[in-house]
């Protein structure tokens, strides 16, 4: 048999032999059977020296071509087998992703604090600062300076917790609202004033599903040269959209507070049903949620703080952080907030 025919036979047999190799090791054996020293191709390579010089280039070229084609086939097969082996190795490395074998601990801010932070941030975005004041407060700041004269029912002991401290005329008490922070801020700052004051407030209250003796309010105050009623509406409408969602609408109805005049109660359209659903779990079908009290700062309050009500005007608002949180998260018992049950708190991560 001549060399060319031998090479043709090898080339014809190669694909089946190479495909039949199931492992890289088998492929190595196939390779040496096809191209090795003792293979037909090796025989041809060795015989080259004895060939007719006229025939040699032709056979040589054919030898090279066959060798290259076989090597090409081998490489392709090798690559495929390597991928298979790689895949097997990866498969061996497989883990059960559902098994939580490690965990990094993560706590959470209290849901009330999360609400406060979010509300504060909305007002900080409007250029407000954040104020703080004492919880054990003087009667002057909690009442008198807020246009709540000694004969006002809210000053009676039935609502206010008084402290056994100091002189009786100082009426040291646990603040019943965050509004005294307004007065203290105004005493220390000149207008313009744009400030929010979150904090604890105290009432003589029996604890039940909707009442706690201590809860959190967020107070807001803006005093500037030309603050108008519409600024109050616009500011609270902006806040409501940021907090409850961009489609939220607001409604003000007249109300009464000693420290604002005119005073209003702000409701927002229900974020859960938008007013369309009877028996809605959030608004009960009313379509509106009362969320805060507000109004134009009473001139007596501005005066008590040392401002001239003929020069500046302002608005103030106050809301309950517990109520805002309960409404948003569907919490039906305010006592959850002070139980600090980790099964409750961990829902707010």
């Amino acid at each position: 048999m001549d060399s060319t025919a031998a090479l043709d036979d090898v080339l014809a047999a190669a694909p089946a032999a190479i495909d039949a190799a199931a492992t890289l090791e088998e492929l190595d054996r196939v390779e040496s059977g096809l191209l090795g020293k003792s293979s037909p191709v090796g025989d041809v390579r060795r015989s080259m020296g004895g060939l007719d010089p006229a025939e040699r280039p032709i056979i040589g070229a054919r030898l090279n071509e066959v060798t290259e084609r076989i090597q090409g086939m081998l490489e392709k097969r090798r690559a495929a087998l390597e991928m298979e082996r790689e895949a097997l190795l990866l498969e061996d490395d497989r883990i059960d992703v559902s098994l939580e074998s490690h965990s990094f601990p993560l706590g959470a801010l209290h849901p009330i604090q999360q609400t406060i932070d979010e509300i504060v941030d909305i007002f900080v975005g409007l250029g407000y600062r954040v104020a703080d004041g004492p919880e054990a407060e003087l009667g002057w700041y909690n009442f008198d300076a807020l246009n709540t004269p000694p004969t006002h029912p809210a000053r009676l002991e039935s609502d206010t917790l008084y402290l056994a401290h100091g002189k009786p005329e100082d009426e040291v008490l646990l603040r019943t609202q965050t509004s005294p922070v307004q007065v203290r801020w105004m005493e220390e700052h000149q207008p313009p004033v744009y400030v929010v004051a979150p904090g604890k407030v105290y009432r003589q209250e029996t604890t039940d599903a909707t009442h706690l003796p201590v809860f959190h309010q967020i107070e807001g105050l803006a005093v500037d040269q030309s603050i108008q009623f519409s600024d109050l509406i616009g500011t609270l409408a902006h806040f409501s959209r940021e907090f409850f969602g961009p489609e939220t609408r607001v409604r003000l109805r007249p109300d009464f507070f000693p420290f604002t005049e005119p005073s209003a109660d702000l409701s927002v359209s229900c974020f859960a049903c938008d007013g369309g659903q009877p028996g809605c779990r959030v608004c009960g079908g009313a379509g509106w949620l009362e969320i805060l009290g507000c109004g134009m700062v009473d001139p007596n309050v501005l005066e008590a703080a040392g401002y001239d009500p003929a020069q500046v005007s302002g608005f103030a608002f106050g809301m309950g952080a517990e109520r805002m949180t309960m409404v948003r998260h569907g919490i039906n018992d305010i006592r959850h907030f002070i139980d600090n049950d980790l099964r409750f708190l961990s829902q707010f991560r």
Partner: protein
Amino acid sequence: MRVSLLWLQEFIDLPTTDPGELSGVLTMLGHEVESYEILQADWSDVYVGRVSDIAAHPDADKVRVCQVDTGSGPEQIICGAWNFSEGAYVAVAKPGAVLPGDLQIGQRTIRGVESNGMICSENELGLGDDHTGILVLDGEPELGIPFAELIELPDVVFDLSITSNRPDAMSLVGIARDLSAHYRVPYRVAPRPLSPVPGSPDIAVKIEDPIGCRRFTAREIRGITIRRSPLRVRHRLAKAGVRAISNVVDVTNYVMIELGHPLHAFDAATIAGDRLVVRRASVGETLVTLDDVERKLTPDDLIIYDAEGPTSMSGTMGGARSEVSERTVDVLMEAASWDPPTIMYMSRRHGLMSEASRRFERGVDPNLTDMANARAAAMVVELAGGAVLEGVIDEIATPIGPLTTDLTLGHVERILGPGFTKDEVTGILESLGMEVAGNDPLTVTVPTYRPDVTRPIDLIEEVARIHGYDRFPATLPVGRAGGLTAEQRRLRTLKSALVGIGLFEAVTLPFVTQEDLSGFGWADTDRLLHVANPLRDEEATMRPTLLPGLLGAARFNVARGTDSIGLFEASRTFTGAPSPMDARLPDQVERLGWVLTGDAGPSALGVAPTRADASVSFSVLRHVMAALGHRGLTLQPQGAPGFHPGRSAAVILDGHVIGHVGELAPAGTGHFQLPERVAIGELDLAPLLAPAPLAEAVSPSPFPHVDFDLSFLLPLDVPVGDLVQATVEAASGLVESARVFDVFHGPGVTEGNRAVAIAYRLRSAEHTLTNEAVKPVRLAMVAAGESLGARLRGA
């Protein structure tokens, strides 16, 4: 305040009677409609009839055979009641009628006699529990009209929440007045003409306290008969939520609902000595009020006296001694103007919140006494007969006239924005009954029924309210520079750091119980801050430390099966010491506290979790300090109240003790029923949040490092931290990091010592460290250890 729409319509012709629309209008006027109820007759086919003839039943002696005319001739009805006679007007359920309880009325034959329907009792109509017989109607109502019309059904009752500044709106006329301003239709008070007879009361009234009692008006009605009020009056009162009692008492309530002025009726015969004196009470006096409770009077109580002593509590509740009873023949009807705070304090002092006191403490129009009194007197005559004496008692101790205030249009615009014309402002104020004169400023005279309006800003509020809050645009004030302070930002950083290591923020009540305070180990009870009027003992003392509250929360969790707990709180603690901020106030320092027990930190399957203990608490401390950038931290091993004395330390920052960190003393774990060691810490917040010095950046050295370990034998009484510090300092700035990787004492370690192994990494910022260069450094580090009493192990 419950308002019947039909009764209200006597005072105003409303352009709509749609309850939803009216609710919206009332709410937007500031009288929030909490709900409204549509009242309907609970029956069908019951008509007004007249009994024209009564005959005995031929075969039954307990019933009678009546002929009843309901407008279309007599119908025969058999009736078992005997409380009426021929000519009585009655409510007749015709055959086909359905009464409450689904009682079907049909044509029946009773012992051979046909009965076409039923004559109804109040009970059968579901109107009351009167079992004395059938309902006999008052007057001569039109025959054949539906009976429901007589008690004004159907009707709508609105439940209004009246704000405390609007006593005038606690009346139908007040509500009508606001609706009149809104709809710009007139309101009216239908007159009740009075036809007095000659004569004057024998009773003299003397006001000895002109502050407490501004005016006292009274009329005497003689020869009355006490009985039930007519059906319509009783049902109007029922709709208003007031129980009908007797005609005279009902009149006082009826007129109060209409006009907002409370009244009181005395049985004139019981007024001893024919004189009434209004003055403050004396110590030791008592008064039995209408509810049969004996009240101990105080010198602040404003009391009406007769010759025998206290006989009525002004504006709050009458006395039992002068109460109108079935035997009353002559009535003295009183309408007085009382000082609001006096009534407020007195009614609360005695726990007597009545419809009258609720109105008086808010302020009833001081000039309404005579009108209310005359109206009530006229109505008493209508309902109870008798005659009103011409002579009127009208003592005016402190006259109060209308108030006048000036309002500039500029002021209106400054608060409400542009666009309020003089015509609109004037129109609104006049629609509310105010008199407006002048151009700009407007001179406004405010009627005395509006005690809430005294200043220009109050007028502006009225303009806004009637204009409609929903008609204002929404604008934003020009922005200002704002933002959180550094301390506020650092507080958030601090909390995030604690959340990041698995702690949950707690909110505990700022009170503490004596049990938890002493159970925790707090001994200093002298400086505690106490609540003067706590509702419960648990709320009587302010917490001087956050830890009992947090430990209480841990106890709560453990009791519910959660045994791995990590809680922190940043809040105020209180003592009775004067506050540095304001000496009049008690000290109220913000602190950070934490409590950890059970598993803490990261966890991995098959690896025993870290359990919270003192060292975990110190890790929390270092974590917090690192997060806040505080470097100058030292620990002084020592206990503190509640802290384990051997496993706790005072935390010193920049030379000041800012709190304690470590482990709860065993007595505390026992008290709070916590099964394991408890890591606790409490630090003052202010120094933590105070800005830390800015880090000065150092470029990381590009030169290679040299690592080696040193293993020391360290006497037990020398802190490892001192060894680390001394060795690091001895390396003259070359130590990049030092990490204690083993501490061991026991077999193989000389008694009284610990084996401490420390891994050091050294690196120079200037050059590559050679072995030659490191050798003397290492020796110096060892020597530094030795100077503390340590010995190099294996050396």
